[in-house]
């Protein structure tokens, strides 16, 4: 073992945290190397010097000040169980979405029912207009008006009251 390698293991050897294999390696080196042995001795001395420095005690009232600051902290609110704001937002969004989803089928049923009722009324109105099919054909077939009337085939003439009736009935 070289001196550079010992430097990494020396602290663990001196503070007795090195494992038995590491200890053995360092001990072997120290028996052979006077410089490292001297350094190890000085480290031990240094550590005892460092221990001379006493711990600092907090001043009177330190605990009271900490407790005061802790007491001033906001208390957890009813949604305090939610660990993160992002999660709280996601939960709120999910809730809103589920409410909307629950309402969605009810709205559709209403629309369908309403549509069905309108269609039924419209169908009833159309059913009463038996002549409407002919009327549609005849009014759009402009060529008929250009034909010369003959005795055998008198021109088609829609009765005035019929047209008015259709219009009224379709309304």
């Amino acid at each position, binding site marked *: 073992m070289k001196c550079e390698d010992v*430097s*990494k*293991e*020396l*602290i*663990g050897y001196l*503070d007795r*945290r090195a494992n038995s294999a590491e200890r053995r390696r360092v001990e072997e080196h120290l028996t052979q190397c006077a410089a490292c042995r001297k*350094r190890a001795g*000085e*480290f031990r*001395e*240094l*550590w005892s*010097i*460092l*221990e*001379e*420095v*006493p*711990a*600092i*005690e*907090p*001043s009177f009232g*330190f*605990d009271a*000040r*900490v*407790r005061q*600051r*802790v007491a001033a*902290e906001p208390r*957890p609110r009813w949604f*305090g169980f939610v*660990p993160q704001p992002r999660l709280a937002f996601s939960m709120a969004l999910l809730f809103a979405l589920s409410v909307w989803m629950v309402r969605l089928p009810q709205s559709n049923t209403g629309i369908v029912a309403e549509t069905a009722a309108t269609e039924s009324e419209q169908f009833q109105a159309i059913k009463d207009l038996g002549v409407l099919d002919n009327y549609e054909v005849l009014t759009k077939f402009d060529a008929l008006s250009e034909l010369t009337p003959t005795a055998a085939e008198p021109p088609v003439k829609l009765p005035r009251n019929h047209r008015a009736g259709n219009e009224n009935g379709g309304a």
Partner: protein
Amino acid sequence: MARSDVQLMLDVKAGNDASFGLLLQKYRSPLVSFLYRMVRDTATAEDLAQEVFLRVYRARKQYSPSAKFTTWMFRIATNLALNSLRDNRYRKMETSIDAPQSNEEDAAPRELPAREMRIDEHLLERDRCEVIRGAIGTLPEKQRVAVLLHKYEEMDYAEIAKILECSESALKSLLFRAYETLRVQLAPLVGQPAQHRAGEGRVS
């Protein structure tokens, strides 16, 4: 039987503020001492220690016992101390830039060239403990944290490595370099008669 720190913290998480009081009682002195050795100012150390306890309390709901309580708490303390030192350094830098020329002479003694001379002067004028604290204070920040946690808090390598966010192997090298620096800096104290170290380290 005394409850473990993790159990106490879980109690705090459950809303038991009395358990927080027990943690405060147990760690107030180690925490203030650690912070004082870091920042070397009593008022700042106490302010930072209060902040650590407050942060521990605020984080109670998110606490999970994945690491040792002390690792978690000293990691908060270390980060706060390092931030405070950096802020202080920045403030000092701003002051020195803004300060008039005459003040530069007052600031100069902070960078004395000869370390042995400085230590000898300290031995004559100041408390022996202050010399030791001063030597620790001159270490680079990471080395300082490593020494304080290793020597004074007696933490194991794995814990310190977690706090410093480095490997155990890197930590061992860091500790060796730190103790080597201290060995050289505090050489005048090594081998002095035992009576010099007695009674809170006062030089007789």
